[in-house]
């Protein structure tokens, strides 16, 4: 840090063990004016404790209704290079797996057209290419298309779906998250690229109840792998865990939420009353070598998760306790389409599907989906007497 540094505050964030985004901005700034101006504008924000971006008109590329977020600085005179500083949302491959070849191609395109700065990745899962002027958008996209990178979602469309690593590297996966994701992303290209809904709609897929892609909290459609039969057990490996340094009683049995698992220390016997197991994954997580999900696998589908705007955050709710999930995933696609249709017909502007269900009632949604009510949908029945009877029901 030289004495006349123009970024004395940010410079302090180059110290310390955690990777420094300031260093990254400086690296990009060495070859790119946009990155440099961005750094200086940020320094100004740090000084004045306020942001300097404004919302602008809609920008984009031909044939797409979304995928680019328009952004303009409030201080174009001071920071001319970022007068226009739009970001691309580029659809990532399932599970965020890359070959280095592919990544290098991407870097080349971005160095050519944009700031050289990226987010790997955005909170929805896209590759975020951070900052390009309006003129560069189309050429940049053309080059991206050349190397087979398509855009992700933005605006009132299906957003880029994402999934956990699943069968790619996880023994717990009860659905082929990577394949399902790739399949539906391709199936719903139109919905992804052309805003047509009342608001955004997100799909996230986790292979098991650990929900490593946080689907339950932040997707309108949360797909979570599970099984219907019995946890598979290798008794020898159970014993091995006990012989290791695991206190099976305290760490596994006492923490089982249903109390359906028992441990006999003398005989080193673990027994599970599978009928009472709620498949929470805890015991399996602790003893992956000894316990495995059952073989009759599929997914639970939960609907309605979202952030707090406007009525408070929602977690997604169980709507289909179990659905088989095998290619071509027709049941699942039909489910999504029917739900979208209902939402599209009934939703107000900027009303997510969970809010719509809340407004019109679960009853209306289940009816539209032609689904039977089952206790798995609720944590408890109603505690109030305010059920509005349909005259049909009263005879």
């Amino acid at each position, binding site marked *: 840090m030289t004495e006349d540094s123009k970024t004395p505050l940010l410079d302090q964030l180059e110290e*310390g063990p*955690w990777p420094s985004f300031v260093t990254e901005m400086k690296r990009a700034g060495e070859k790119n004016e946009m990155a440099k101006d961005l750094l200086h504008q940020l320094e100004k924000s740090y000084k004045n404790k306020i942001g300097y971006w404004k*919302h602008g008109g809609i920008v984009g590329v031909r044939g797409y209704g979304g995928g680019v977020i328009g952004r303009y600085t409030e201080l174009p005179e001071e920071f001319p290079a970022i007068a226009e500083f739009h970001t691309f949302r580029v659809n990532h491959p399932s599970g965020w797996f890359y070959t280095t070849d592919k990544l290098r191609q*991407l870097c080349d395109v971005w160095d050519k057209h944009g700031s050289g700065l990226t987010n790997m990745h955005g*909170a929805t899962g896209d590759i975020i290419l951070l900052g390009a002027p309006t003129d560069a958008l189309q050429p940049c996209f053309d080059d991206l298309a050349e190397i087979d990178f398509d855009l992700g979602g933005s605006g009132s469309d299906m957003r880029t779906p994402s999934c956990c690593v699943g069968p*790619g590297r996880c023994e717990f996966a009860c659905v082929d998250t990577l394949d399902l994701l790739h399949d539906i992303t391709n199936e719903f290209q139109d919905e992804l690229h052309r805003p047509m809904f009342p608001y955004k709609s997100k799909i996230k897929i986790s292979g098991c109840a650990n*929900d490593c892609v946080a689907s339950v909290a932040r997707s309108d459609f949360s797909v979570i792998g599970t099984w219907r039969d019995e946890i598979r057990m290798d008794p020898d490996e159970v014993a091995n865990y006990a012989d290791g340094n695991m206190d099976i009683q305290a760490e596994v049995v006492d*923490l089982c939420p249903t109390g359906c698992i028992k441990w006999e220390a003398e005989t080193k016997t673990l027994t599970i009353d599978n009928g009472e197991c709620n498949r929470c*994954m805890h015991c399996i997580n602790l003893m992956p*070598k000894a316990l495995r999900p059952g073989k009759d696998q599929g997914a639970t589908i939960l609907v309605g998760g979202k952030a707090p705007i406007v009525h408070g955050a929602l977690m997604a709710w169980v709507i289909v306790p179990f659905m088989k999930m095998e290619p071509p995933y027709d049941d699942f696609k039909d489910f999504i389409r029917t739900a979208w249709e209902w939402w599209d017909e009934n939703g107000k502007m900027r009303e997510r599907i969970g809010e719509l269900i809340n407004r019109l009632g679960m009853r209306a949604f289940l009816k539209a989906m032609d689904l039977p009510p089952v206790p798995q949908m609720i944590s408890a029945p109603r505690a109030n007497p305010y059920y509005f009877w349909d005259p049909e029901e009263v005879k």
Partner: protein
Amino acid sequence: MTRTDFGPPNYKEMLPPVIKENYGKWKYHERVKPGVLLHVGESGDELYTVRVGSGRLVSTDWIRDICGIAEKFCGGHLRFTSRHNLEFLVSEKEKLEPLIAHLKEEGYAVGGTGHSISNPVHTQGWIHCHTPATDASGIVKAVMDDLFEYFTDWKMPAHCRVSLACCLNMCGAVHCSDIAILGIHRKPPTIDHDIVRSKCEIPNVIAACPTGAIRPDPKAKSLTVTDEKCMYCGNCYTMCPGMPVADPVGDGISIWVGGKISSARTPPKFSRLAIPFLPNNPPRWPEVTDAVRNILETWASHANKHERMGEWIERVGWERFFSLTGIPFSVQLIDDFTLASDTYRSTPAFKW
């Protein structure tokens, strides 16, 4: 015509050979040491994963750097995680330790697995968004520098997910995090009537307000805001640059605790407000890093093994959370929104 709708690159082409061969046939995993996982296939094949912390806001140079490393040790394959960490996938055991040594030499942060804190999911902040109440990357950097030992080591009873969002939109799963750092505005928009008159479509601005706080001011050909109805969401500013909500004094940070996503043991939980406001104090936000460390360490030293933040708090009670952390309880923490009455206490059975 440009090509459209061709979809993302096919993940199959991205997978390293060991994954292709063991796809869907992994048998178990072991946590070798902090930052290193071993997955073993039914075939007996082994796959080591080395997890590396990332600042997420990275340059193309950095991407090329990690590509170089992956080419040297991993046959040119790598992946990112759902929390934006980087993972090197090692199929040849003999390359594992050299890779780790190389990473350490080059200053990469290896860790984030098992009972550690992982990369805080975060958002744009002052870098690229128009509604932030704080920065994102800077606070994350400050917090992770401070808590680095908890990233590289297993010193906690369970894992702990720290997340950050720079405004109420809460991009990311902030609302269900063990510790959430959330930027908040606290002042209604100031109105620049000239801009409103010249640049904004008044009916659209009125319609954008979720609480009905905005009314037309026909005389001024502009708008007025009923301050008591405004919850500072910034929707009006999105529609109309003449109504900024950001303010150096009004803006700052709130801290939320006890959220959870996985269904392991207990169902997912929302994070709940613990500290209603801390000032923006760049570049290192010491009030925030102190608060996060205090909460994390109070939990870590009191919780049982495998007990997440929210599970611990539910066991000991919120009254104990406040007395143990020393965080003052303030009226802002008491809910008064739609589901408020479900959070009031209807029993004399509480702790002093």
